[in-house]
């Protein structure tokens, strides 16, 4: 079930927001196929009636008080990290 075509790789790249080169797509087709062949062995395990584990320590509903806290990460500091900023905004190219 884990045969991966170049179209599959292109589709996954699109889902992952990666603009791959043709050379990368050829390599990844092989690598991803091998990885999926390895993880496919888990299909043989009978898990019927088993609950999935999403959290291992059993913590639930951890609360903190809803108070504004100060931080060193001020607006100016954070904006300075952006590759391009104008005023109080991060600048990006046209969306569409």
């Amino acid at each position: 079930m884990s045969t991966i075509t170049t179209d599959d790789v292109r589709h996954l790249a699109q889902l992952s927001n990666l603009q791959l080169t043709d050379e990368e797509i050829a390599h990844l087709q092989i690598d991803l196929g091998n990885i999926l062949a390895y993880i496919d062995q888990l299909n043989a395990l009978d898990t019927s009636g088993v609950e999935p584990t999403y959290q291992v320590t059993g913590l639930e509903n951890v609360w903190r008080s809803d108070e504004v806290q100060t931080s060193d990460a001020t607006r100016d500091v954070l904006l300075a990290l952006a590759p391009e900023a104008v005023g109080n905004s991060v600048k990006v190219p046209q969306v569409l």
Partner: protein
Amino acid sequence: MSAISDIVNAVNSGASSVRTQVEAALARAKSAQQYHALLALTETRALERADEMDERRARGENLGTLAGVPFVVKDNYLAFGAPTTAAAKILENFNAPIQATVVERLEAEGAICIGKANLDAFAHGGSTENSAYGVTYNAHDRTKVAGGSSGGSAVVTALDVVPFALGSDTGGSIRQPASFNGVYGIKPTYGFTSRYGVVAMASSTDVMGCFAKSAGDVELIMKIIAGRDEKDMTTLPDYFVVQEESDPPLKIGLIRETMTDDVDPEVRSITEEYVERLTKAGHTVEEVSMPLAPLALAMYYIIVPAEVSSNLARYDGVRYGRRAEGVKTLAELYGRSRDEGFMTENKRRIMIGSYVLSSGFFDAYYLQAQKARTLLINQFNELFSQYDLLLTPTAPTPAFGVGDNVDDPVKMYLSDVMTVPASLAGIPALNIPAGVSHGGLPVGVQVIAPMREDAKLLAFAKAMEARS
């Protein structure tokens, strides 16, 4: 033997200054450059802090339990004094606006960060060859890998550049390089240490831990870094209470499935020799079976890429980090910045994650893996109802050659086969240096304890260390 206490005592008694300690560590770091374990030194900030601390000491102030102790952080920890790159191009100029909680706690006790260690980019890898800034070499043989992903931290500890270093462990990234370089390395219970301010990889297994040359020094650091952090809601209350003595005899299970013919014969014989040492120390060791252990790696390489694909979605070249040049649209900016900024292994994991989470495959992969995880945890619980600790080799081989596994991701993943079960279960595990191969390479054993038994695990390791 405590390298940390030696420094603290020298500083507190006035026999040495903080500046002397920091300068000496920086000099050692520079003379170890051929290993390429560090991506940056935080020299200016470290020396400023040293002078400030020396002034405080002159005024009679207490500098803390780690007065003047230099340390190194893996470069996925947000820390001041140098960029935080996660060894990836996409963060090449990222100057952290805050520091990780763990770093803040250590600094509050007087420790001084002197540099940032190399890793596999975004902690994806088992050799520290997947760094955008070059390979780190093994402390005992520069033709061999450092292990990974916390390879740089393990190497600087092994070379005595610093008495301890911080790493992160998602599936073995502290324990395996600790084994390859012959130092102690702990992966604490999930939630024992805060992840706040560390670049996230897989949030259901990521834990912060450390490397040191002795079990006692690991314990000293754990005591400071463990505990609840308001900024990381997955942290647990302060369960880490140092145990002065281990109470032997303990009942220890050697997991049979980790001692098969697939495992290097020297690794098996060194593990067997360690079993003899345990027996001589009065412990009882029995072979036990954990049938799901060999399947844990398949579970891991479904669950972790799924979480990776989600956690790495934030690196888009918009708000911080490196942005591709000459792009015309936002979609192109995302796609090109991510393609140029990630390493091949990052892309593999992100895409596998997209695959196992995508509609039509979710039940067959992700849900199946999370159910299998439940069965794996059940097997641990059954074993821990009869045994105090479990034992395995830490890695199936000693450090492999640089370049040997870079073109075969599945072969690289297999170096995590011993360490991923404890990660999926969230339980503590420690690499203990156990021997040296005929080729002169260190080999470690992994001791696994029940959830929240980190202190007991370290008390055991200290007692064993005292006997050798």
